[in-house]
């Protein structure tokens, strides 16, 4: 399956991927509205997170693992593996906000939704035409969406 692969050699830590992710998951689909309003009001947040250490940066999000720890940990059936696409899917209706997945995912790819008792996790922008928004936004090709 195609996944998003981050390259820490060329990530420049601009955080544009985070902004793109946020916009892609916003109601307005408009960065300015998403960032100024939906972020505060609806707790809109990015599935991507940029880490920095010295001069190295990397932007990570869910790896859509073959054998995901989050699915093993999910007590509600809110996370499961789609056998057809291979995506690790999240069903927010089922999620009870127990944070088991957040604890179990050793890739730190799950975060709490700031205002709702739900999690925030990459969905590979499955609904988005043109694939993952973060990859499209990265100015330095430090994110690649490909089959490996």
């Amino acid at each position, binding site marked *: 399956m195609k996944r998003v692969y981050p390259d820490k050699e060329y990530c420049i830590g601009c955080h544009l991927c985070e902004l793109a992710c946020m916009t892609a998951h916003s109601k307005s689909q408009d960065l300015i509205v998403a960032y100024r309003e939906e972020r505060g009001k609806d707790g809109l947040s990015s599935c991507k997170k940029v880490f920095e250490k010295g001069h190295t940066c990397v932007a990570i999000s869910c790896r859509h693992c073959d*054998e995901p720890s989050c699915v093993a940990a999910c007590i509600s059936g809110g996370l499961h593996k789609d056998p057809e696409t291979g995506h690790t899917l999240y069903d927010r209706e089922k999620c*009870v906000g127990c944070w088991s997945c957040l*604890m179990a995912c050793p890739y730190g790819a799950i975060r709490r939704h700031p205002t709702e008792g739900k999690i925030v996790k990459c969905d590979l922008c499955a609904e988005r035409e043109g694939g993952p928004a973060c990859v499209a936004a990265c100015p330095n090709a430090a994110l690649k969406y490909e089959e490996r």
Partner: protein
Amino acid sequence: MAIMKYVIIGNGIASIGAIEGIRKVDTENEILVIGAEDSPAYGRPLISYLLAGKIGPERLALRPQEFYEKSNVSTKLGTTVEAIDTKAKTISTDKGETIEFENLLIATGGIPFTPPIPGAEGSDVYNFTNLAHAQTLISKAKEIKRAVVIGGGLIGLKAGESLFDRGVDVTILELSPRILSLAFDENAAALAGGRLAEVGLNVRCGVTAKEIQRDSDGNLKGVHLTDGDFLQTEVVVIAIGVVPNYSLAKDSGISVDRGIKVDDHMKTSADGVFAAGDVAQAKDLLFGDDRVIPIWTNAYNQGFCAGKNMAGTDIEFTGSLAMNSISFYGLPTISVGTVNPPEGDDSFEIATSLDEKKKSYRKLVFQNDHLVGYVLVGDIDMAGMYTAFVKFQMAVPEDAKKQMMAGEPDVLMWPDDFFKDTWNPGHVEQD
């Protein structure tokens, strides 16, 4: 009935893990699941959410019905397996069926442990480990004003919290000096206890029930405590813990210790018979010895590993890792690995940071430059990053340790090769 390639006893999460494990390898042969409870597999921990009224019964099922159809799994629910003939490779059920199997998984989970308390026999004393218990308590909660929960561990607190949410006045009794004595330490327990008290639950530590008082009709009246107090109550919930439900296995000659003994491949002493979940005593990731660690993730993982092995691949179980995530009225707590190292053992190094005002606590336990466990209360968002260090047993160099202690673990602290293999596998620089 023809020989079934795969039979699973128990319809809990270990069973689902096994189905998903088998299907990773074998997408064809039918799987039969036999479960004593008559509901589809549900999230056992969800029963406290149900009791609290946070979710409705429609949200209990772990997998949609079509999952079973698509995975070619047939189920016999409300059916209890009464015996296993390990020689003939058959099982027999309470419905009088005998089923021949090629591979069998015993995933019968745990049963509530009930200490001998005088007066416990009789009405209105409940456990809290399955859906039926929750349903009973839901209807009971409408009639009662007071309840006493015996046991201040995870299940006891959750039961107490949920009953409280139903408008019941709840007192929780914990024999040890603090609640959550197994998975958490004093600071975390104090924060969690504080939160419960703030909301209005009564938590009493260092005491337990000496006797349950009944009137001449056998109606429950109250509980005598070890410290001499008496608590009036209409309901007692005993939630002291679960013990492996291994009698079925033991009776059929399968080796058991504290749980069913399994090897690296989740195989029991009997040919073609595997065990997983709360019933199994399997390898512990950190300690290397075999332990019963009755938690959800392990049940799934063990089931998954057993499933793959049942389907013919040779996969070793990586080991159980104790981990718990539980929130008390919005105060999240997480505990992973070794969090209470033996006192006086100076091979451990402990770093804590406590902010009582913010209700935030972090405890990191290092041993030989490795993170072996941690506790987080309040600010839990980086939990997974700590888990990585425990789970992958990566060495933690001094500067990384500092960063962790500052609450900022991250992927860039990983060894370079491991980082590349994980995040950017197969990538080679052209020059």
